[in-house]
């Protein structure tokens, strides 16, 4: 069974490019219906199932995602 | 003990660069300055002081290598001749904009275009008025002997670091190619840079340093320009150098710079022998220009003849300096032709005394 993980997204820095969403094998990410101060529909975690694989973070061009995973 | 040698201007300048503790030279061959890099390559400064010498693939690359080394706070220089200096202008503008210290040597030859390889002073405007794009100035030193070619290298590095600005030594084919007796100063140590503006590697706990001439906001760029202008006013106040000969009782004034001043001095001696009271004012710094001294002498003399190996460039600064107080005329030979003292004396008699 995969370990459990979680992500923290710095929504003010997110530009809503969605590259993380397509990189996530667990489909836990989506775009928010709200916009941030810059007017971007930022990425949010919408589903459980994150394994802390960090794929989202390593493809994020703006380094807005921090990843945690249970030890 | 002072060390006397008979050396070519270009070679002496190269030796002076090693002795001034320069860290790096980047250049590209072009007549009549190639002896600078040839001398450096032959004299192994890497072994003597650790100074780096590199033949770049172009003048453009050479000046940008200077930028890189200067950005590290190192003492870097390059040399070229007129067409090569035109190529370097882009880099010089960036260096001026990024406020980096470096030394540039232009052994001027005739132009425009490929021109000729013979001596000329036709790059005065380019050197003194900026040369590249944007509002900036270079300190410009004009040696008129091999000895000054040596001494000005040391001075140029001092001024470059004092003001964080590029300093040009404007030599020419005569000064570069001639041999004279020269006294060399003793080897100075190379210094490990520790300037807050230089990229020497980030210091722990401090923000990193960057060297740039880019400002995205006009307001910020104007601040940079104001700072540069303030620096130029300081330079104008502190660094003017000139040499005067027989100006005290002069009725007429000759003025010339660099090698041309040597020839003009001969004309002055000939005029004095004929009983004409002529003086010679030789600007040693072309920027900052000895404006006040010209203005002062303009109240005393009946006219000024500006002798140049160009079609009339420094004469404009002389006219601005005297501001109409006295007559100012130009006599020039150009395209690599060198005026002779008889011609100069004749021009003085025709254009100033009789004119």
């Amino acid at each position: 069974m995969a370990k459990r993980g979680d992500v923290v997204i710095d929504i003010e820095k997110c530009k809503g490019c969605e590259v993380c969403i397509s990189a996530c094998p667990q489909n836990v990410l989506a775009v928010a219906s709200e916009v941030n101060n810059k007017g971007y529909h930022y990425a949010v975690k919408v589903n459980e199932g994150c394994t802390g694989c960090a794929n989202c973070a390593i493809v994020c061009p703006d380094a807005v995602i921090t990843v945690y995973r249970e030890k | 003990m002072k060390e006397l040698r008979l050396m070519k201007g270009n070679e002496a300048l190269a030796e002076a660069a090693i002795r001034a503790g320069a860290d790096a030279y980047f250049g590209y061959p072009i007549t009549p300055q190639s002896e600078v890099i040839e001398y450096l390559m032959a004299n192994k400064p890497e072994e003597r002081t650790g100074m780096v010498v590199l033949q770049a693939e172009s003048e453009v690359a050479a000046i940008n290598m200077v930028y890189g080394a200067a950005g590290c706070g190192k003492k870097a220089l390059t040399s070229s001749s007129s067409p090569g200096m035109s190529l370097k202008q882009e880099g010089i503008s960036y260096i001026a904009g990024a406020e980096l210290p470096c030394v540039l040597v232009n052994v001027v030859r005739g132009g425009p275009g490929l021109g000729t390889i013979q001596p000329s002073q036709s790059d005065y405007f380019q050197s003194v008025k900026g040369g590249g794009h944007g509002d900036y100035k270079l300190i410009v030193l004009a040696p008129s002997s091999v000895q000054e070619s040596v001494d000005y290298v040391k001075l140029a590095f001092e001024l470059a670091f004092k003001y964080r600005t590029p300093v040009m030594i404007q030599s020419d084919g005569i000064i570069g190619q001639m041999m004279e007796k020269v006294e060399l100063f003793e080897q100075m140590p190379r210094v490990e840079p520790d300037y807050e503006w230089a990229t020497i590697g980030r210091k722990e706990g401090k923000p990193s340093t960057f060297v740039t001439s880019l400002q995205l906001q006009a307001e910020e760029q104007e601040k940079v320009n104001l700072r540069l202008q303030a620096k130029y006013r300081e330079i104008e106040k502190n660094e003017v150098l000139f040499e005067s000969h027989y100006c005290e009782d002069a009725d007429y004034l000759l003025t010339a710079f660099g090698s041309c001043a040597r020839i003009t001095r001969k004309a002055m001696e000939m005029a004095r022998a004929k009983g004409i009271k002529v003086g010679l004012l030789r600007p040693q710094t072309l920027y900052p220009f000895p404006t006040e001294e010209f203005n002062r002498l303009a109240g005393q003399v009946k006219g000024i003849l500006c002798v140049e190996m160009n079609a009339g460039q420094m004469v404009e600064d002389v006219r601005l300096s005297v501001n109409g107080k006295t007559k100012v005329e130009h006599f020039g030979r150009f395209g690599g032709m060198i005026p002779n003292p008889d011609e100069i004396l004749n021009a003085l008699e025709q254009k100033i005394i009789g004119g």
Partner: protein
Amino acid sequence: MSENLIKPENLVYKKTDVMTDRILHYCPGCAHGTAHRLLAEVIDEMGIQNETIGVAPVGCSVLAYYYFNVDMQEAAHGRAPAVATGIKRVFPEKFVFTYQGDGDLAAIGTAETIHAINRGENILVVFINNGIYGMTGGQMAPTTLQGMKSSTSPFGRDVKTMGSPLKITELIAQLPGAYFVTRQAVHKPANVRKAKKAIKKAMEYQKLNKGTCFVEIVANCPSNWKMTPVQSNQWMEENMFPFYPLGDIKVPEEN
């Protein structure tokens, strides 16, 4: 349930401190940010933040020095390899890199690029190839693909009059001064991992003083390609990769 996972001891990934906290000015989805981050992570992991000096180009990444928390110099267009040469020659013990786009490296700076590498300058060149001039608004680059539209080739690049796209990386690999030459991408997790490995290798090789390391990153330009970031990455795979195939082009013999 996941709340309790967010604890320092569970941290597996966060932005490196070798990147500053400034918001990148790049467009959404632009590969520049990822490429910056990989380079910064390598510098971080190698512990060479205070021994690294970078050179920024002219192009979209002209402000790279705002984002790297290492000392940097901003070079004139195309001149980064010459500037880096000046730095490396006076500081041979420092780690020096240039970061250049295709216009900077493969058009105006071709001479500086080829000669610095031919001299085997011990620097890392990171080359971002997105086949277009980004900063000035999508003009044709030396690497623009045949038939590809840009604002200066609005009907597609016609090789008869505009020349063929330049595979400068293959060209550079021919030079004896080039020690390690590779082409990577950063659009997918697997590519990111490979690209980072390549950059790390290159930085480690710099210690050996064996020559220039050259890492090309085939990149997207969603804004000027007029696509969404995700579409642009797909277009890149379908169109750029066949002409600019990923993988090592020149590797040191002993490895």
